[in-house]
């Protein structure tokens, strides 16, 4: 059973994380140090440092790409029209954190149109109304 952790706002596997960091540093740091040594001994020191930095940055990208190929994301992506019940739960969670999202019918027509195109209009109206009832009770 892999150990899943939340690091920097997303889920990672602790073993994969250690592996990825090792690869990243293992590629980029030697790339920088070796090119820094080569460039500064053969040419202009200041410019050599800058070129070495560029190679080091490329090294970071290569390291990240290798880690990306080896370790797949720990995310489950669903890409569908979410059903209304699920939508309401999601909106409730957002409201819980942010406060009421309001009644979209109060907005100007152009803004209402945008929310309709997103398919959120009815869900927001429902949520607002059920909340309004909740406070009356």
């Amino acid at each position, binding site marked *: 059973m892999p150990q899943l952790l939340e690091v920097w706002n997303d889920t990672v596997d*602790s073993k994969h994380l250690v592996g990825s960091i090792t690869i990243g540093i293992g590629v980029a*740091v030697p790339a920088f140090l070796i090119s820094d040594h080569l460039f500064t001994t053969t040419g202009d020191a200041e410019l050599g440092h800058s070129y070495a930095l560029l190679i080091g940055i490329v090294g*970071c990208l290569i390291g990240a790409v290798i880690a990306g190929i080896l370790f797949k994301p720990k995310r489950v992506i669903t890409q569908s029209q979410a059903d209304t019940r699920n939508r309401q739960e999601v909106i409730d969670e957002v409201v819980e954190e942010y406060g009421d999202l309001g009644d979209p019918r109060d907005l100007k027509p*152009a803004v209402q149109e945008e929310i309709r195109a997103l398919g959120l209009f009815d869900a927001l109206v429902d949520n607002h109304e059920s909340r309004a009832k909740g406070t009356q009770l």
Partner: protein
Amino acid sequence: MSADLLEPILWAIGMALLAAVLFTGIGLISGTDETAIVAPLALLVILIGVPPAGVIAFFLAAIIAKHISHAVPTTLLGIPGDTTAVPMLREAQLLRSLGVPHIALQKAISGGVISVIIAIPLSILFAWVLTPFAEAIGAAAPWIFIAAAVLVAYTSKGKLAAVVALIPFVLIIVGLQAFILEQKDATFTTSFFLGIATGPLIYDLFSALSPTGRRSMTQAGKREFDLAPDVRPAGGAKLPNPFTVLDRQQLAYTGGSAVITSATFVFSPVAMAVLMGEIAGSRIKNGFHRLTTVVSVRNGTTESTYIAETLIPLIAIGLPLSPMAAGPAAPLFNAPPVYTLDAETGETNNLHDLLSTGEFALFSVIAAVIAILVAYPFVMRNAHRAATWVMKSVSHEAIIAGFVALICVICLYEGGLLALGVTITVGLIGGLFNRMIGMHAGVQFMGYYVAVLTVPAILAL
């Protein structure tokens, strides 16, 4: 057009194009901090010997393009694209939970484009107005920074705790700088900024390493994301116009924030983005509309503050008297041996002296037009596809790996293992302050300037 101007214009076009393409790509990668990435690359361009026109165009096109594409990881992945993207993270994340991350993205980048259009002429205007007062501003800078630090700290989540926490934070920086000066005969900048910017990541990595910390970070299963269907404004394949992506109220708030933040060039861009978002948000009653408006205002502010904080000190003063100028734009002021700056005498030989105000205006417009023409259509057209691809194929481990490697390389570049130690120290403490007492990176950046500017001024009293 005189022939003398033709060559600089060609340089400006070429360098702006290069920067726009490069930084549209870099912006897509989350956590690529401006100070850490833009400053070294600008330095590289200067040291290679690109003429002033090419340097300013490269720099401006880089930040404009980056602040358009940095909205992609921020809105679609929920990981800040860079430091300035942090303020819009919460709204972006809530919109993502609602299944409409691409709307957050479209609002953000349209806000950015509009702010660029407003900020360039206004920054030049304010610079022209300020030129007579350049000396007085320079003299008052230490006190401006400490007042700003206290204000920004008090408006953060930490309130009074963040204000008081400035004392240990500033002292740590003063102490580290004194030690570095003793060892290296120079001070560091980038490694401090990198530590502040990546504080939460460094703190999380420490926490994951400790058995006690790990317990609170454990997740039961994979996280689920629900991506909404791709919604495009009417018009089909035609590229959405930023002026129609935003509604009239959003245009007004974004434009207004751009005007204000083109003048407040001494404040931290992150802090201004937070503040402008709060002001706009407090005036909008409907919750959903507030979310989309705040995203566009905050991303707009990242563009206008960056442009103003670069152009105003460059044109009017020639000294790096803004958080931007002391950070990402630092090489434009001081990149020995090409550009020099003598802190004792105030003598400068940098872009301030090498370009006239008219030339600044011309090359800035060239940079802005090219950056927008490259970044905006790319991000707007490919937003949903890029999001889906990134979510499905780019693992968070890879992003962290790339970023940890980047921290190591940039620190080793700036000052070897000592710089790496500085970043880890500042990052762990900054991250702790950030997570535990709500003192965000913006407050910490101000703390840095208090340490380097105000503390010496207090000691000299």
